[in-house]
């Protein structure tokens, strides 16, 4: 299953990913109309300040997802048809916030849906081939890849760095 990996040195903290996420989860899917929607669309990833650098914090769609185990109403489930991403059915969410309480990355938020407050969680953009945040990143800090691909990239980078240091 593909995951979104982060090259921290490339994150400039521009927050385009947050904007793109909100726009993707709006009714109109266009920035200039999405900003006028009520309720306002809600981002599901967070660019935060960590120790002097900007760090995008995203949902990992964990194998042993605590939010999935914690959900009281069965709103959060694993979508086997989409490689096992952990997603949410808003109509089943009762707004108990147990998922918020247990997500170690703090990437579950609250949003208005049809007048009720429900959980807002990354759904890996079911209507797109590549998640909106990844596409929006102007420096390609966010990388959408299989873990093996990513490991290969990381190894190549380390090797290149080491090679550069030799001699």
């Amino acid at each position, binding site marked *: 299953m593909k*995951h979104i990996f*982060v090259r921290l040195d490339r994150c400039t903290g521009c927050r385009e990913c947050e904007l793109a996420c909100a726009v993707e989860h709006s009714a109109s899917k266009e920035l200039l109309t999405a900003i006028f929607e009520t309720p306002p669309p809600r981002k599901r990833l967070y660019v935060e300040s960590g*120790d002097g650098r900007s*760090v995008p914090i995203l949902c990992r769609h964990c194998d042993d997802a605590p939010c999935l*185990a914690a959900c009281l109403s069965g709103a959060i*489930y694993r979508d086997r048809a989409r490689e096992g991403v952990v997603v949410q059915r808003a109509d089943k969410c009762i707004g108990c916030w147990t998922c918020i*309480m247990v*997500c*170690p990355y*703090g990437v579950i938020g609250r949003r208005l849906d049809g007048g009720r407050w429900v959980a807002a969680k990354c759904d890996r953009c079911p209507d797109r081939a590549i998640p909106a945040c990844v596409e929006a990143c102007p420096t390609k800090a966010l990388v959408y890849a299989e873990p093996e691909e990513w490991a290969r990239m990381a190894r190549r980078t380390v090797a290149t760095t080491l090679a550069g240091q030799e001699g």
Partner: protein
Amino acid sequence: MRHLIIGNGAAGNAAAHAIRRRDPSSEITIVSDEPHAAYYRPLLPYLLHDAPEGRHLFRDSLHLPRDVTVQLGARVQAVVPDEGRIDLDDGRVLAYDRLLIATGASPSLPPIDGVPGPGSFVLRTLDDAVTLKASMAAAGPSSRAVIVGGGRIGTKVALGLRHLGMAVTIVEMLQWIVPQQLDAAAAEIFQEALQSQGIEMIFGRTVRAVRRQDGRVRGVILDDGLELAADLVVMATGVRPNAEIARTAGLATRRGILVNRFLQTSHPHIYAAGDVVETTDIVTGEPIVSGTWTNAVFMGEVAGENMAGGSREYPGAWGLLNAVELAGIPVISAGLVHPPLEGYDVRMRRRERAYRKLVFRGGTLVGFILVGEVEGAGVYTAIIRERVDISPWKEALVEKSTCAPFVRTLRRFPEVYAA
């Protein structure tokens, strides 16, 4: 391998999944004294005023793995550990190789004259909810309710009954609402909200007696002699583990069933999980009986895995791990929120209807309360559990719950980040 689970709640269902994951071919049977299919106990208060949340009461088809036999309405009379069997009260006998006691807890009633009795109710099971609802309907909207106990259940029931137009008074023994999960400052926020909804609250008092006339409740009498008019009384004074069958089976018990770090009871083939267990507080190390759904699920997972041959260690339960929304205000709290005066660093922020309190011991977080701005609470939960040293970021963490400074040290999937 024949696995037998007593109890069809959070722990029992989670255990069934864990067993099936580890042992695809073994037999799994669940026995429950309730006649209903598995449901989400925390949602019961929503049934009282037909809140939309109540629609999702019953769990969906995925709550159990495949090939699990469920016996509903079957009460266990005795467990016979030496013979590896349980006796049901309808005369049937079920044998097992591994047994999980996940019988949960029942309402604990303080000594009150006239309770139990007609017009006084508890809210633990679906049947309790149905009964209470019927009585509320019979009593009519202009009736008056007294809720004994201002904890989560009591407060939710109070809001539900108020929603239907009843006059509601909460009598709480301690000094503020939801005292286990909130501190005074946080509780104040909720109390304002409850007051603005017309709910009366009396603190620092207990109920001595329920007065009836012609078989109907007329009032409750407090410990100071004050009588409150009442047409119905709801007891929400906590729960007691249903550990009787363990006790009579000779297993080690105290307040609840005692277990080792693998959730085994004093008999190696018998495990226990959920509200029936006495375990240790993951933060303080003190013995506790945990009463939360989330704890029960995790315990069930660990117990089930170990029943099926695993050796997973249970790190302890959360004495406090609570997420709830009352009167439209969300609150999440966990860990140690009422610390002793010495040795703890307590930091608070109050902003209008938002309140944050973090409790540190040295460089680690041990407890928190978030009212209003609850997003990111799970970061606090994680750093409490994993005992991450967050000394450099204490102030930052009080302002905002973010894992950004230490995201690469969190256990799950650290390779997501490349420097």
